[in-house]
């Protein structure tokens, strides 16, 4: 290639120093793949000098028949750095739980070395494999090779974004449902909605196996699925005593940290008032050998989390307190369809489901999707008297009297 591989980057070179692995070294390693990495270094160095990004507002590029999965990106200094004039990203749907065979990883690398910069993110914020930087004409051939190898693109734009799941039953004793399976099934069920954006804005599913919520579903997913249990915490008294014998201060570090103070410890026996337990996981996290989630497992469904754009950040709130594991997939699908129907009809442009609920009110939203209100949905009943009574209800009562 006619590119000078020794582009001068004194500022970026500072980021090769220090003990943490360096992304600058990674970009330099990709110089052997092709000229893109060298021009990326050049442009990034310019950003470090100017303190400003040098990418233009995205352009619409993609693969045939899909409305997402590719983020178009063009340099605003293409004359200086022609090899990153186009620097589009492909989002490749990762396998549930981010497990790979080395064979699959090498296949991905081979494809990307042939069609792109040789740079990736493992992984992007939503969980996809990110192929970082290629030209428009490489998109279709790259996609063809990916699908040949059994991979498909992830979501971008106003679509179902690539669902993600915690490691779950694959390597975690606390998984209260099969997060990997659920993530896979939902991803497969909504391929059309994932690849062809049909909504007012994006919609995310995230699957965490227990209330530790390792994939941040309560902060990031429009539909958060968080594993939990209905019966009692499983308890091995001998193992509890063992923790105590090994020096764990059960009174201070477990009992007094329980948010509902539903435990007591007499130095011999740990007693849990399971009716009062809110399934927070603390005691189980501290004593994994002695305590574990109950046997009647399933998940809590919560709705509406999002980052600040547009109307402010929201955490998801409870929609269904407990769904048994064997009913989970069907319940999620049914509920999702009803939520989408309502959102399709009433959602404004770029309005996430959580914002729609804020705007129309949770009670109206529940009516629309056909769910009965339950006290688990709120932290407290309203404290203002401005109630919109409905006429029919008053009338019905009168006619019954």
């Amino acid at each position, binding site marked *: 290639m006619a590119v000078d591989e020794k582009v001068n980057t004194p*500022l*970026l070179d*500072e*980021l090769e120093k*220090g*003990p*943490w692995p*360096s*992304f600058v070294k*990674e970009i330099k*390693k*990709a110089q*052997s*793949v092709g000229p893109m990495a060298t021009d*990326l270094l050049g442009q*990034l160095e310019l950003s470090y000098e*100017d*303190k*400003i*990004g040098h990418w233009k*507002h*995205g352009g619409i590029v993609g693969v045939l*028949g899909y409305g997402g999965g590719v983020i178009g990106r063009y340099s605003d200094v293409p004359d200086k750095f022609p090899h990153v004039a186009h620097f589009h990203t492909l989002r490749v749907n990762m*396998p*549930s739980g981010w*497990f*790979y*065979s*080395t064979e699959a*990883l*090498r296949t991905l*690398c081979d494809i990307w070395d042939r069609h792109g910069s*040789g*740079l*990736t993110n*493992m*992984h992007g914020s939503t969980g996809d494999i990110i192929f970082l930087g290629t030209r428009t004409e490489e998109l279709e051939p790259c996609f063809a090779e990916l699908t040949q190898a059994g991979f498909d693109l992830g979501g971008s734009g106003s679509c179902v974004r690539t669902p*993600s799941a915690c490691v779950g039953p*694959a390597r975690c*004793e606390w*998984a209260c449902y099969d997060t990997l399976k659920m993530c*896979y099934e939902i991803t497969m069920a909504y391929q059309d909605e994932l*690849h062809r954006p049909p909504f007012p804005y994006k919609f995310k599913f995230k699957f965490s196996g227990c209330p*530790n919520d390792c994939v*941040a579903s*309560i*902060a990031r997913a429009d539909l958060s699925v*968080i594993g939990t249990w209905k019966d009692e915490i499983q308890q091995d008294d001998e193992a509890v005593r063992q923790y105590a014998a090994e020096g764990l201060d059960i009174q201070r570090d477990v009992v007094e940290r329980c948010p509902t103070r539903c435990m007591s410890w007499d130095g011999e026996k740990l007693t849990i008032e399971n009716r009062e337990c*809110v399934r927070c*996981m*603390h005691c189980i*996290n*501290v004593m994994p050998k002695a305590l574990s989630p109950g046997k009647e497992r399933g998940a809590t469904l919560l709705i509406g989390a999002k*980052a*600040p*754009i*547009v109307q*402010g950040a929201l955490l998801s709130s409870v929609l269904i307190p407990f769904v048994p594991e064997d009913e989970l997939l069907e319940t999620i699908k049914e509920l999702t369809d009803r939520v989408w129907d309502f959102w399709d009809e009433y959602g404004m*442009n*770029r309005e996430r489901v959580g914002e729609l609920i804020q705007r129309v009110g949770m009670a109206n939203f529940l009516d629309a999707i056909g769910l009965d209100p339950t006290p688990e949905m709120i932290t407290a009943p309203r404290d203002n008297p401005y109630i919109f009574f409905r006429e029919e209800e008053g009338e019905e009562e009168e006619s019954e009297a």
Partner: protein
Amino acid sequence: MAEKPKRITDIGPPHYQKFLPPIIKENYGKWKYHERLGPGVMVHVSEAGAKCYTVRCGSPRLLSTKTIRFLAELADKYCGGYLRFTSRNNVEFLMDSPDNIEALKKDLADAGFPVGGTNNAISNIVHTQGWVHCHSSATDASGIVKCVMDALYERFTHEDLPAKLRIALACCLNMCGAVHCSDIAILGVHRRPPRILHESLRKVCEIPTLIASCPTGAIRPKTIDGQQTVEVVEEQCMYCGNCYTVCPAMPLNDPENDGLSIWVGGKVSNARSEPKFSKLAIPYLPNNPPRWPEVVQAVTKIVEVYAANARKYERMGEWIERIGWPRFFELTGIEFTRYHIDDFKHAGLTYHRSAHIRM
């Protein structure tokens, strides 16, 4: 050449079961408990007594295919040809015996990959694209992450904090990633209203959509030289960038005024206290590449004060709730300003309406 293969679409991701190592497949859903064996190393024990050893190492997230091939080589050498990544961009090597742990750790150390990030350590920073790939960034992402993790390296390779500590970085208010519920969030901010490129606005933007995009109603229609365009009521602008997302002719990037803000005390886990948002600690720090000394110093200081003062199992936000915000500002030496007082939609919820005051 051979005939063109048929175009395949909508196949979804590969089935995850193809990629599970035997030790995982055999014990899927049958794990009983786990134990920590030191920073970055754990063992999970199944009901049948089988053991899965995990070695976790940090990565810069931005990986060359060369490095991925290198990690694959290690997985071939020690793990029967499988590996996984975590939700925070760490790499995990899974083994059915402890025999190779030390050899693997040594290979990782030789290649510059730190082992750690488990339990009460700082895990890897989740972050966004920054100047490497995004058009709306107020700052770089990978660069700051590198500098902060260089400074907090020992906190990754040791499990010596009171509790978990999760740091996240987003380079604009779009916040790709869950930064708004992190123990410490580093957030790129703009501080001046968008510049309006009237010429291109007419060509590339729909004015009604643009006006509707502004959450504060700061954008108004305007006619200049008989041409339809918009104006921004500057006092109403909070530099959120919504307008820029829908209209490329409203850029906010500004090398002089863009910078970083620091937020603290958020969490997503339900353990003990409920999940919570991160709250503003420092409204603005200068954007100072290549090593961002102000940001590194601020984050390090917050971590050190937390480490010295929080009780065991107290996350950043739980610690601050116990000691109170006045004490947090006092201990960290961070100045409390008018910017810390909320004035957006639900501002009143954070006014202190009681006489409970620590003197």
